[in-house]
């Protein structure tokens, strides 16, 4: 790699004491002295706290007054202070990419016992950084203009929140939802913990706002097919599935649903407990108000006759010949709020769901207690009439269980407590809570827990082994028996109940991986979308311009989801506000003279960031798409593609610096032994 | 070479000396190495521990310039231990008694003192070479480029004759010719003393034959000048004009400061070459020549194998083949006998006048691929090995030779011995190979070799620059430390104009062959910065 400028390399090296964090183990003065002898090093200092303003000034002064044009700071992890020192360099007029850091705290002084060894390791790491920095090149960031329109994927509460935040600020939002209506899981709930607000009462106005906002284009019954482009510049292809309803003519009067002769078990919204028609809106408050025709169940589509809906529709809005429509929209940012799936309780056969009639899932229970639900809010057993006298609520079903999901689903404790309260309130039944640990860490949550304790609910700490209807004594006849080890008393217990509610955990959407691939982001092993940083950047992803919010990123309750929706909106608005955005400077670049056009880099790039220039028969990196992972470099046999700031020269020089030092010490030791 | 590759496959012992074979004659080297798989033993005697030395079964390292001594030592042991081939000596040679007397003094111990070769190793080699049924000697410039170069060659012959390892397949004395057609240039009379096929210019019948054939009244009868004499001639005014065809003495000759002065003194210097070589830059007329790929002709390799060169493309950039240029000039000067259209016609004339090439016609080459001379007529199959039943002069003559030191030995002022040579990736003065990207990338510039002990003594740390000085000049080059050379010895390739080894080399000549002592001169080595 040719050096762009032929100016002499003059390196300044700064060894940080970090109080005694480093200096207590590493002989910093010796490292500094020794570094001063390395090739191209013109200044070498050690200082108490390099990250302090005085420490930074040391660097700035050397750059400005002593002609230092490469800087090495040996201190803590670059993840902590690389930006700090890069800024210091920039302030002094040095390109920040001419800076390199040696990590002699986290990776040396804190982990090495022997002081002599720690000093030697520090020397090797400094020599490595010195070797590397000599090969570093100034980099300038690329700026791309931001298309102010935004795509929000998922019309649950998170997506609605994000949509409204952005739309209210005057930016246009495309809100896309694959079900016929927005609302998501929250629309299915009756009450929300810990305040026991009516879910519909707080959600419906927001749905309405989103659906009728002048800055929102709502695309329900639609799915994203393809995403191309990069931050500021995405082109999204969307399939609007045929509703078989002309929405321009439909008034949402509901006559079609009334007249439709075909009843279908509604296992989406009603969790299988209720019915809908073949033409339907999922629930009365649906937004938009237009129904869809369920082609699979529609008699006309299946048998060619019926058309009852068409006959009765007062506006002639039924259109059996409607086809899917594929549209493209261009947006600058994308928020994914695709939510979660409920753990399928059938996977734990010993809990009996699907086999034992009166074992319910949490979602089924939500529908049971919902006044708009199939039982009108009555808590009854599967026969639809019997009110249970005892109810067992089992926590952590499919969560905190190494056989299924290791993680805690975050909402089940509170949800189960809510259920207990509702059962008590509606039936007065005995309620047992079977829990592993009670986790109620948010505002007013523990208070709710305390309240439920005082509502005479039985708490049994222990993982339920089995739910069975095999009675061992007459008292158990006709009951569901919950077999559990009560770890508080250290005893096996069998508790007969009438009804069992399984507080099923949350899981990533079944198609999360495909969706991630579509949007160029990653999934963790349990398929939750990965945020850029779990603490400091929780809604961004590694793909600039693509954000995640709500339960698609990990189990979350409503307040957290709403907060994330708003947070993602804020991030997006901040980007839009910048007008243009700086993208990763460490991107790959193709040496066209060397490139032989074999397309291996194109195949291997995880971001489709490399295109093939047909006219030149060469590969070409779309810088705005490149994330700087360097996978292409690892694949290119002719080394025609390189990654800026992680070039082969730089990495080899770094490695040689460390190896050279180790070999020097080894030789010195050998000579000392021989002498 | 007395022998050719196919028959050399039968060798059981291969003694290589003064040849960095893997780098200078890579394909010969690998052919020899492959014989190891069939059980052959390779012995290498060389001051540098080269790749072939590393591969060898036995490697002996002598001090540069002490070859006469170890040859005598080998022969001493062979005679002492009754390993000589007495029948061969009796029937085929003369001068044996003098030789015997001479080598009597060269006990292995004494040889060890002179050469540094351990006595027991010398004995081992002597036994191995002598006892094998078929042993072959290979040598190259490491043997010849000395003031005692001819004597070295005689020593090779002595050794081969003493043991009868000559005149049969798998034996012989096999010089490896450095350049692609150095054999042919000699065969064709590109020498001051002979016509083609080594017919002496001093012999009346030879001159008459050529006078008649070429249609000239009188051909000169005195031996002409050698290169070094020409250079002196230019300097002292005896030579006024010089025509250089595809050579680059400005870089290849010893003491080039002196050579360049001489060339600059020329009244008229003509250079024809493919590129503007260092010599061409001094010329009065430069004639662009076609490359090997742009012309037809023949090359004779080191085995005396005559092979075709074929035109793949027309001459580029308006260049002309050397043949066409010579003919144009000759015709312009009014000469007859230069009306050739094709090299094939020239070869027909060569067939007539050059007995050893008598049967080497283009028709036969096309049919057979190649012919090894001597090939006197159109039916002759060629001669894969020489000296089968008798030597050219009849009986083989032993030469009794004492060890003599090189012309210039290290002293306090110039404490190192400089030895020069080639490397794998370049050819001669680099005129062509340094313009081949892939070769240039491999070795872009001159790197000298120095022993680590010497390197640390002069304060060399890693790959620094060193200054080399001899009595004739100085230069700066990169240095690499390696055990390949002994302490006190530095090696340097001569391909590179920016650090031209021949600034330093000694123009002292072998009195017979007039070959300069490239392989030994005294230099000083110090840090350049």
């Amino acid at each position: 790699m040719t050096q762009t400028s032929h100016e002499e390399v003059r390196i300044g090296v700064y060894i940080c004491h970090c109080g005694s964090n480093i200096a207590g183990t590493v002989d910093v003065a010796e490292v500094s002295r020794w570094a001063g002898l390395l090739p191209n090093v013109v200044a070498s200092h050690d200082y108490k706290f390099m990250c302090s303003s005085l420490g930074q000034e040391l660097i700035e002064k050397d750059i400005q007054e002593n002609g230092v044009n490469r800087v090495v700071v040996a201190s803590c992890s670059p993840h902590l202070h690389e930006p700090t020192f890069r800024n210091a360099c920039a302030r002094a007029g040095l390109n920040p990419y001419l800076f390199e850091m040696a990590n002699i705290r986290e990776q040396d002084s804190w982990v090495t016992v022997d002081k002599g060894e720690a000093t030697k390791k520090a020397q090797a790491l400094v020599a490595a950084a010195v070797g590397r920095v000599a090969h570093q090149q100034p980099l300038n960031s690329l700026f791309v203009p931001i298309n102010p329109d935004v795509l929000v994927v998922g019309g649950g509460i998170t997506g609605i929140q994000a949509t409204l935040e952005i739309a209210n600020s005057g930016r246009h939002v495309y809100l896309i939802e694959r079900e016929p209506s927005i609302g998501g899981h929250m629309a299915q709930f009756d009450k929300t913990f810990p305040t026991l607000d009516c879910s519909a009462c707080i959600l419906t106005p927001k749905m309405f706002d989103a659906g009728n906002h002048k800055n929102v284009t709502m695309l329900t019954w639609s799915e994203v097919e393809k995403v191309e482009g990069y931050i500021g510049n995405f082109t999204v292809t969307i399939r609007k599935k045929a509703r078989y309803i002309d929405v321009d003519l439909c008034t949402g009067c509901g006559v079609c649903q009334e007249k439709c002769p075909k009843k279908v078990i509604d296992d989406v919204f009603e969790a299988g407990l209720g019915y809908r028609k073949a033409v339907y809106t999922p629930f009365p408050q649906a937004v938009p108000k237009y129904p869809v025709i369920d082609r699979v169940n529609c008699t006309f589509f299946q048998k060619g006759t019926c058309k009852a809906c068409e006959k009765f529709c007062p506006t002639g809005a039924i259109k059996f010949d409607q086809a899917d429509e594929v549209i493209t929209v261009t947006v600058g940012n994308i928020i994914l709020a695709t939510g979660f799936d409920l753990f399928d309780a059938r996977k734990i056969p010993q809990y009996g769901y699907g086999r034992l009639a009166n074992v319910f899932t949490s979602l089924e229970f939500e529908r049971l207690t919902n006044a708009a639900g199939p039982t009108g809010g009555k808590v009854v057993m599967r026969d639809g009439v019997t009110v249970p006298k005892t109810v067992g609520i089992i926590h952590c079903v499919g969560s905190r269980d190494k056989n299924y999901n290791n993680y805690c689903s975050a909402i089940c404790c509170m949800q189960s407590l809510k259920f207990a309260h509702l059962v008590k309130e509606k039936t007065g039944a005995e309620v047992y809570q079977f829990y592993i640990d009670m986790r109620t860490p948010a505002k007013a949550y523990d208070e709710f827990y305390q309240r439920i304790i005082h509502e005479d609910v039985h708490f049994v700490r222990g993982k339920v082994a089995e739910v069975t209807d095999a009675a061992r004594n007459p008292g158990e006849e006709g009951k569901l028996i919950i077999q559990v080890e009560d770890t508080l008393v250290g005893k096996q217990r069998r508790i007969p109940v009438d009804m069992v509610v399984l507080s099923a955990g949350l899981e990533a959407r079944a198609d999360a991986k495909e969706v991630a691939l579509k949007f160029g982001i990653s999934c963790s092993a349990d398929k939750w979308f990965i945020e850029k940083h779990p603490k400091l950047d929780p809604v961004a992803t590694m793909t600039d311009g693509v954000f995640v919010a709500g339960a698609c990123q990990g189990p979350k309750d409503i307040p957290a989801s709403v907060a994330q929706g708003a947070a993602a909106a804020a991030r997006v608005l901040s980007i839009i506000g910048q007008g243009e955005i700086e993208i990763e400077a460490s991107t790959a670049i193709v040496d066209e003279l060397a490139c032989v056009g074999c397309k291996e880099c194109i195949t291997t790039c995880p971001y489709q960031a490399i295109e093939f220039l047909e006219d030149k028969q060469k590969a070409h990196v779309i810088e705005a798409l490149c994330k700087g992972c360097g996978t292409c470099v690892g694949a290119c046999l002719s080394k025609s593609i390189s990654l800026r700031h992680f070039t082969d020269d730089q990495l080899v020089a770094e490695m040689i610096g460390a190896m050279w030092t180790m070999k020097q010490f080894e030789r010195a030791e050998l000579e000392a032994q021989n002498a | 070479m007395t022998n050719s590759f196919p028959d050399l496959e039968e060798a059981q012992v291969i003694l290589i000396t003064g040849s960095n074979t893997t780098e200078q004659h890579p394909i010969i080297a690998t052919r020899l190495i492959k014989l190891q798989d069939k059980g052959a033993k390779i012995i290498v005697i060389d001051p540098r521990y080269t790749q072939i030395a590393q591969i060898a079964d036995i490697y002996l390292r002598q001090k540069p310039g002490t070859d006469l001594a170890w040859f005598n030592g080998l022969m001493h042991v062979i005679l002492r231990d009754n390993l000589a081939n007495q029948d061969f000596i009796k029937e085929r040679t003369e001068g044996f008694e003098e030789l015997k007397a001479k080598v009597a003094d060269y006990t292995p111990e004494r040889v060890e003192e002179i050469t540094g070769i351990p006595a027991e190793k010398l004995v081992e080699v002597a036994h191995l070479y002598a006892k094998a049924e078929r042993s072959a000697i290979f040598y190259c410039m490491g043997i010849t480029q000395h003031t005692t170069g001819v004597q070295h060659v005689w020593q090779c012959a002595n050794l081969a004759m003493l043991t009868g390892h000559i005149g049969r397949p798998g034996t012989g004395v096999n010089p490896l010719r450095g350049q692609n057609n150095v054999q042919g240039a000699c065969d064709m009379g590109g020498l001051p003393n002979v016509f083609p096929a080594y017919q002496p210019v001093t012999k009346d019948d030879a001159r008459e034959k050529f006078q008649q054939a070429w249609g000239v009244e009188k051909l000169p009868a005195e031996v002409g000048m050698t290169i070094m004499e020409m250079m002196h001639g230019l300097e002292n005014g005896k030579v006024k004009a010089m025509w250089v065809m595809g050579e680059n003495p400005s870089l290849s000759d010893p003491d080039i400061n002196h050579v360049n002065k001489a060339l600059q003194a020329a009244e008229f210097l003509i250079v024809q070459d493919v590129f503007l070589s260092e010599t061409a830059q001094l010329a009065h007329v430069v004639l662009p020549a076609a490359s090997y790929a742009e012309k037809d002709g023949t090359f004779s390799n080191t085995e005396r194998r005559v092979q075709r060169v074929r035109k793949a493309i027309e001459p580029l950039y308006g260049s002309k083949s050397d043949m066409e240029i010579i003919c144009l000039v000759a015709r312009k000067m009014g000469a007859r006998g230069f009306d050739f259209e094709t090299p094939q016609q020239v070869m027909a004339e060569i067939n007539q006048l050059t007995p050893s090439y008598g049967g080497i016609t283009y028709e036969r080459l096309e049919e057979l691929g190649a012919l090894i001379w001597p090939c006197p007529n159109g039916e002759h199959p060629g001669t894969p090995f020489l000296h089968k039943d008798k030597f050219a002069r009849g009986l083989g003559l032993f030469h009794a030779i004492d060890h003599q030191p090189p012309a210039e030995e290290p002293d306090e002022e110039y404490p190192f011995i400089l030895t020069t040579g080639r490397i794998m990736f370049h050819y001669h003065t680099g005129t062509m190979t340094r313009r081949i990207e892939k070769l240039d990338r491999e070795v872009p510039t001159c790197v000298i070799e120095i022993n680590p002990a010497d390197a640390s003594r002069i304060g060399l740390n890693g790959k620094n620059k060193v200054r080399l000085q001899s009595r004739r000049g100085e230069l700066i080059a990169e240095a690499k430390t390696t055990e390949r050379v002994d302490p006190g010895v530095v090696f340097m390739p001569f391909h590179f104009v920016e650090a031209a080894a021949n600034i330093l080399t000694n123009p002292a000549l072998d009195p017979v062959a007039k070959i300069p002592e490239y392989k030994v001169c005294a230099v000083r080595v110090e840090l350049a910065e």
Partner: protein
Amino acid sequence: MPEPKIIGFLCNWCSYRGADTAGMARLKYPPNVKIVRVPCSGRVSPELVLRTFREGADGVMVLGCHIGDCHYSTGNHRAAKRMPVLKKVLEYSGIDPERLCVNWVSAAEGERFAKIITDFTETIRALPPLTEEMTWTKG
């Protein structure tokens, strides 16, 4: 016996942070491994590993994110495909494939990191120095 010289190529997002995590937890491990930070284990070309051996390293580590956790989505998949082949090449060349350690460490796995480093240093300690093995037998 000289101490093993080891270079570790660690991905910036998981394993390098895992090393930081080990540091923050003050876990102790041998100092032999010197870390070179790379953006992703997928960036590590076989040539880079081999050059490190050429430079005299007795062992080379390539540590990345766990499969499925790659911050570049699937960069580490490429490492998981290239590196086993490289281990085979080493094996067929007579170089102990144990000298190349390929493993996965998340940002949270300080302990795992320290254990991998300790174990690998011990593995290499049990082998002769590579430079000793890498000398020509002839001559």
